[in-house]
């Protein structure tokens, strides 16, 4: 489950980052913006979900709710059309948005952290949908047609004219998020979190405050989700309640599951798959009455999601690992060593 620390992984990461950095030289502006930038920020959102599920054993659907809160806070604090348009400096608004997002996340965590498993999933789903209903009701905050024409930090320039600046900003943030989450998973806090994912009773007996650990992990994931919310607002230049509804909540879940719920890398693998499907499936989808056609993207997405869940609970990353494992059984450990077992032995070593 946890990414292994082999040197090859660092090499892979370096290659991916260099390739991503060179991408604007190769691809069109459209591709860089609509596929790559979008996958990067969607990946950050999915990473906050995967972090909780892979290391904390909590599948949270509240991440979109939290990123909506952060995005809405930012949109209301900077100069904009609609909302309260407080015309703060974008940098100040950025900090405030993250603070509010984390505070709301900690609050949600405090309520939900005592529940586990499927209860946790349901409660966090309810939170996310409640956030959506809140913003669609309170038009003083969300405007009637959303909050538009946002004043963005100078760092990202104006993504409409020059998408590469936002792309590089998003890339740097995504890499930092990935490295930070990987680092945290190896700190005593991260290890304790994995401990109480596998053996909550034993951890409690060892004197760990299980609930507090869960709440803190949730707060950390809320920080990542808030960052994703800011990136999404910068990317779109606007925010509407419709962009944080149940469909978006489920899309982020789908991204995480397609990529793989047990691996951080899965977040971006899933996001890239999603963005590619979103754009190109419309072109090659055959029309078949009302059932299938270019407009039925969600049906295709749902079917892909269903197939992944049915075939490979570890998502694409899990699938890839199984393939690699089967090819490399001769020189590596015996089959079946991937997944939960690796996890436990690793915990034992450390």
């Amino acid at each position, binding site marked *: 489950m946890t990414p292994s620390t082999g040197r090859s992984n660092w090499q892979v990461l370096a290659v991916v980052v260099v390739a991503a950095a060179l991408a604007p030289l190769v691809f069109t502006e459209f591709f860089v913006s609509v596929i790559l930038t979008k996958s990067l920020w969607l990946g950050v959102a999915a990473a906050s979900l995967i972090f909780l599920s892979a290391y904390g054993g909590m599948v949270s659907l509240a991440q979109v709710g939290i990123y909506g809160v952060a995005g809405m806070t930012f949109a209301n604090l900077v100069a904009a059309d609609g909302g309260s348009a407080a015309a703060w400096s974008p940098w100040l608004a950025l900090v405030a948005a993250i603070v509010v997002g984390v505070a709301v996340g900690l609050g949600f965590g405090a309520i939900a952290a005592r529940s586990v498993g499927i209860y946790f*999933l349901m*409660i966090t789903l*309810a939170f996310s949908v409640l956030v959506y209903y809140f913003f669609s*009701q309170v038009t003083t905050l969300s405007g009637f047609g959303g909050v538009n024409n946002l004043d963005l930090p100078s760092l990202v320039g104006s993504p409409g004219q020059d998408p590469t600046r936002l792309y590089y900003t998003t890339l740097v943030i995504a890499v930092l998020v990935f490295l930070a989450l990987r680092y945290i998973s190896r700190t005593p806090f991260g290890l304790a979190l994995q401990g109480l994912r596998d053996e909550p009773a034993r951890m409690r007996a060892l004197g760990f405050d299980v609930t507090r650990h869960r709440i803190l992990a949730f707060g950390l994931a809320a920080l990542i989700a808030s960052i994703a919310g800011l990136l999404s607002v910068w990317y779109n230049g606007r925010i509407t309640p419709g962009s944080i509804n149940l469909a978006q909540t489920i899309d982020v879940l789908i991204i995480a599951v397609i990529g793989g719920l047990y691996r951080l890398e899965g977040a971006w693998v899933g996001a890239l798959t999603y963005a590619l499907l979103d754009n190109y499936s419309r072109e090659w989808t055959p029309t078949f009455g009302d059932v299938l056609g270019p407009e039925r993207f969600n049906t295709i997405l749902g079917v892909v999601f269903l197939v992944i869940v049915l075939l490979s609970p570890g998502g694409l990353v899990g699938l890839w690992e199984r393939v690699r494992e089967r090819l490399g059984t001769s020189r590596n450990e015996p089959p079946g060593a991937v997944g939960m077992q690796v996890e436990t032995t690793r915990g034992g070593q450390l």
Partner: protein
Amino acid sequence: MSGAPQTPLAPAATSETSRRFEWSPRRIAVALVAAAVGIWLIAKASEDLRQFAVVSLNGITLAALFFVVASGFTLIFGLMRVVNMAHGSLYLFGGYLALEMQDSWFKEESGLGLSLSGTGDAEYSLVSWVVPLLLAILIIGVLGMIMQQVFLRWNQGQDLRQALITIALSVIFADQMLAAFGGISKDIKTPTAWPESITLPGDVRFGFFRGVIVLGAALLIGLALWWLIRRTRFGQIVRAGVDDRDMVSALGINVQLVFAGAFFLGAVLAGLGGVLGGTMIALAPGEDTSFLLNSLIVVIIGGMGSLGGAAIGALALGLVDAYADVYLIFGDTDLTNYSILVTFGLLVLVLAVRPLGLFGRPA
């Protein structure tokens, strides 16, 4: 260390009392909030008693609808530990099916389209409401059973995976329903013979369908389910299955058959809710989400798998929704826009005291 013999007794005594009742800060906070809400409601009620009666009836009838839908959700969860995220889809699909049948089979224009009477010119007999209802819930029941047999039967016990599968199905359902039935809000027509409204004592007028049919259906279903669960062999097996599924299976009972039956019943209840809701409120894309959320909140409040909990949860949610929509006005400040926060508050309040819901038991 002279007190040593007493020490084992002391903790035992405290744990004894804590099992009975204890005023923890959390409970005190909840009691204070409850008292404040009570006082606020009494104040509002004394201003206009008739309005209060109508608002309360609105809440109770809404609760009746929530109960019908959520009872199916909780039944399936209680027995099989399956969180059916497609429950809202089954609700909406049930409503749409009944609407389609009513439109295509029973829409009789009164007198060659000479609509002198105004807008509602089509005549609807009682049959035109009841037949689509029965067929729709039957189809939804079978659909639910197929869903369980094809997608959920073979991965029993993997509750997260099952939830993800039903989420995938709900995504597909929602998109296909949008394609087939369009995005415009529609509703199922009540039989023309039924009165618009009834007059209650105190000259309170209230919608007939809402007040009599929906409420009556919910009461009937509540009683029928109670009878089914408490008095029949099927219910015995279901209750035993909730407690210890493996033991039931070991006793030679065909648990798979019972599971299929329970899923059929749960889906039927979702479909019935859809027909009632489609007549009482409307059918539109997004109603599936809305009723999934309502079912979730009802069972989170009441406790997963408990029918009584579903009833209490539905009542709490319905009343809170109704009161918050109307009474969230303090002097000149109108806070009715923020009514969703009250629903959220209700959820928080219950979870703060009972993480598993009012009647929830650990799985």
